[in-house]
């Protein structure tokens, strides 16, 4: 499936992960992640929800491998995304808040960027990128520049860019939060369907409850300093109970400690 390697995605193991930033402005240390333990199985689709500033993006950056852990380990399979940075080229793909397209590149050239980086032949790059843009409904906008596209369309290009390598692991940080409700829901659906089809492990980070619950498999609730407040197998919850679930997560976030209703299955 994956074009950079064969075999399914490896599992993700986070053990005692800590990340401390030194903030020059305040002259203080900020504990962004405090001893996080988390296991994500291959092909799982996980939503991570938490309030602004709780360390979600820091966790995201560490998954990408841009930041080394201060303490503890984060391993994908038997490798570290930071120490084995190059190993994961073409295996981990990201969608960010805001599309982050290169303004001087057309939709097609933006979508094929990750393929250029892994050195696929030019013809194949174009073909793959074209296929994904068409699947995302952008068949008529292949040569359009980002500024000629709407916000939703640009995010579609960004999603195509993530999928072209058919990554083992897909990471999305607040990827739909800036879009209007309807577009966001539509794109989320598309994103999840494609992720399942590709057999990728997908981690969606969000501060919106609806989005987190809508994702399906599993919702991980982060408290301050990425403290693991709750780990909810949403799939096991009956749909009629979603309102209860929503309320329980809401209270969990507010109190920075797990609502008892969330632990009923454990």
């Amino acid at each position, binding site marked *: 499936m994956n074009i950079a390697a064969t075999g399914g995605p490896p599992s993700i193991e986070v053990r005692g992960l800590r990340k401390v930033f030194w903030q020059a402005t305040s002259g203080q240390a900020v504990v962004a992640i405090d001893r996080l333990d988390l296991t994500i199985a291959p092909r799982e689709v996980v939503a991570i929800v938490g309030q602004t500033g709780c360390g979600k993006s820091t966790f995201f950056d560490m998954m990408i491998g841009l930041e080394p852990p201060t303490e503890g380990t984060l391993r994908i399979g038997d490798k570290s995304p930071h120490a084995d940075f190059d190993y994961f080229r073409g295996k981990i793909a990201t969608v*960010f808040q*805001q599309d982050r397209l290169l303004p*001087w590149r057309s939709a097609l050239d933006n979508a094929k960027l990750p393929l250029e*980086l892994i050195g696929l032949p030019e013809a194949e790059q174009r073909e793959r990128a074209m296929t994904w843009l068409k699947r995302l409904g952008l068949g008529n906008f292949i040569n359009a520049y980002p500024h000629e596209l709407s916000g939703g369309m640009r995010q579609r290009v960004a999603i195509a860019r993530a999928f072209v390598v058919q990554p083992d692991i897909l990471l999305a940080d607040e990827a739909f939060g800036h879009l209007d409700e309807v577009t966001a829901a539509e794109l989320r659906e598309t994103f999840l369907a494609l992720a399942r089809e590709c057999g990728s492990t997908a981690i969606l980070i969000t501060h919106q409850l609806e989005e987190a619950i809508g994702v399906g498999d599993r919702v991980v609730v982060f408290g301050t300093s990425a403290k693991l407040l709750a780990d909810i197998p949403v799939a096991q919850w009956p749909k009629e109970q979603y309102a209860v679930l929503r309320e329980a997560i809401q209270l969990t976030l507010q109190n920075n400690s797990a609502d008892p209703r969330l632990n009923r299955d454990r």
Partner: protein
Amino acid sequence: MTASNDELREPVRNFTFPRHTLVSLLIFAACWEVLSHLAPVLGIPPFAIPSLVKIAKSIGTITPLDIAVTLARVMAALVASFVLGLALAMAMYRSHSLEKYLHPIIRLFMAAPVVSWILFAVLWFPGVEFRIGFVLVVVCGPVFLVDTLDAMRSVPRELRHMMQSFRPTTFQFFIKLMLPAIVPTIFTSWKVNISLAIRVVTIAELVGAVTGIGHQLSVAQELFSVADVFAWTIVLVALLFMLEAVVARVEHRLLRWRT
């Protein structure tokens, strides 16, 4: 409303008749001509303000070889300055300590007057071409360096972060993100440096060169020929405008994505 085919087509060039420019040039020329005839009455030596006819004659004696030589010097020096400036800027972007060490030296280079560089060049290097090249590179290189380094610094963090997340090699990072991102600045920098180089090259050519526009200017000065000085100045200005137009053309082509 229906648009005709012509309206739909992208305008190739919006040519507007340069009415104001022409009028002001004509007025200037007329004043000059009047002054040149009044010169004896005003007690000004006759060679100081030559008539337009005399200037036209001087333009007729312009030697294309000198123009070509000066142009070649300017272009070679600009290319060398650009390559050097950009390479150093990239190295300084990558290495913070290199930047800290080089920054003061570059400030110093930029603060030193052009005349000092010319004198240094004369004292240090025997070859005329090398002297001219040295002066131009020392003057233009830092401009390229500072401009491109600044531009690299201001590439949005979000884009760098995005690019990094796809794990480029250092080379890919520069080729696929940094360079294209700073293209607009590169063009601005070229425009600034072209006019700088054209003005500096003539001074540099005054010292020791036996060809080039600067040399011709010094000959004209020795002959007290204001008409010749005028003619060569016109050539220099025309050369500058022409080069700027070429850069603007290329810029328009390459930066199409912006409009």
